[in-house]
């Protein structure tokens, strides 16, 4: 998902420190190091990704974000990034709070369950949606807590989490989401990127 990473990189200032939670093979970290000269660290649960990152010279800790974010001291990173995994945690609220404890800011992206293709799949075909951003079937999906851009927006308001910016991504465009255009963007964005804290 290059476009998403590009949009995240656009938010992040140069020469800062970033923790990428669920960093995968380290593509985003690499991009941020090259373009923004940041000090990057990763946390990743999959052993093979950890090894790949290590051999790319990236600093990555093998571990589960759900249980192991506690090892990072308070406010030890300028930014903490969580790309498209919030919905896969047992307790997304706890993870979100931990992200905002460890980072001075957090960037959280979600696959938007409010996207029109997702809605039509359920509405017209009566089937759980399988799309590019939601590629799994209902029985093998890692996603436990699917939500829409509007859901996360409301959640942040309820929990007094400060939203600095929301970016919506669809096929070829990125656009800023505000309260005024929330309903429309919630229908037409595949991915929502929240800059919090």
């Amino acid at each position: 998902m290059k476009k998403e990473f590009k949009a995240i990189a656009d938010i992040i200032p140069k020469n800062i420190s970033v923790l990428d939670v669920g960093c995968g093979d380290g593509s985003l970290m690499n991009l941020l190091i090259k373009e923004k000269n940041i000090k990057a660290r990763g946390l990743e649960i999959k052993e093979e990704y950890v090894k790949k990152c290590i051999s790319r010279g990236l600093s990555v800790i093998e571990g589960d974000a759900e249980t192991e974010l506690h090892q990072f001291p308070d406010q030890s990173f300028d930014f903490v990034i969580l790309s498209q995994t919030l919905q896969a945690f047992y307790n997304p609220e706890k993870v979100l709070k931990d992200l905002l404890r460890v980072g001075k800011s957090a960037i959280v992206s979600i696959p938007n369950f409010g996207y029109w293709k997702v809605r039509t799949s359920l509405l017209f075909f009566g089937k759980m949606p399988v799309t590019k951003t939601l590629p799994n079937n209902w029985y093998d999906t890692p996603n436990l807590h699917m939500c829409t851009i509007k859901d996360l927006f409301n959640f942040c308001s309820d929990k007094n989490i400060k939203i600095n910016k929301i970016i919506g991504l669809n096929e070829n465009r990125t656009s800023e989401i505000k309260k005024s255009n929330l309903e429309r963007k919630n229908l037409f964005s595949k991915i929502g990127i929240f800059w919090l804290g």
Partner: protein
Amino acid sequence: MQLNRDFLPSLAGLFFYMNEKLENIKKLNITKPLLLDCKQNVSNFPLAYETYGELNKDKDNAILVFHALTGDQFVSGINPVTKKEGWWNTAVGPGKAIDTNKYFVICANVIGGCMGSWGPKEINKKTSEPYGLNFPVITIRDIVKAQETLLDYLGIKKLLCATGGSMGGMQALQFCATFPDRTFSAIPIACSTSHSAQNIALNELARQAVMADPVWDKGKYLKKKVQPKNGLAVARMVGHISYLSEKGMQEKFGRKLQEKADYEFSFDADFQVESYLRHQGYTFVERFDANSILYITRAMDYFDLSRQFKGGLVEAFKNQQTKFLVISFSSDWLYTTRENKDTVIALNAAGADVSFAEIKTDKGHDSFLVNEPEFLKTIKGFIDSMHTKFKNEKRI
């Protein structure tokens, strides 16, 4: 305990024969005074070492390997003293994970050891007799300080990497804490920042086995040119049990009998696992000094990095520029993943640059010594990428 005594006479002279062969190995006489943790000041002592590969012109390819409790400086190829394979032959050598065609690998025998470095079997110049228990009680920090002098001698300002498993990993951590500017990266493998109660207990078992052997004679056996072989062999057996995992041991031996169809209703080695332990025990006494086991296990037990620094572990790793890769093995019950992760947490809390990987394996603590492809791939990937970074940093 009934031990296989028929086996012993043939080995009786071997240890002493090996001692004579130690004359031909590389030794550095350390003249720089070393103040030991026990407050004794020492100088003019030998540090035996070996190197593999060549130091390049830029001196950016040096890797210091620290050996574990019963290891020695002969990491790769054939050990010229024991004629057996080097203890880390799986990882170090031409074309291997730590490629000696590319890197300059250094390993020194720890002080307190018995492969040519200053240890309890060396002759005390004051008494003209082997030190025995008159050898000072040393620590991991003393061991590491002695090795720093070797780097000066070899003309290496900054290592590419410092690494080792088990006690070797503790030395790597100690080295980084004591000399934060002397290595670009470090791989502490299957170790901890302090010895756990369980590990102290197992070491105590090993020491008690040695000391319970009447031949040990309060450490004065060398004067009589004998070794407390039975005690030392039991000490080694304890070690070997702890290096394997329960599952690994069950799969390797199960209840299989040793070259027999049925029980013999005796105390000979009926089971393969007994035979294995006896073999490990009795081949060990050929090459190792019993007093060295006492001294080195003691050094491990005293190891506690947090105790050395006011403010604990975070202080120990403060201002670290070294890039760490901590590795644990899923079936290691001697230095568990939990303990290795505690090291990672401390490094994180100190703001150090740290990676961590747990290798999934049934091979227990011994995993770093055997052919474990995922482990070898991980260290190779790390060292090669660190070399690129180190070269770039030097260029800038």
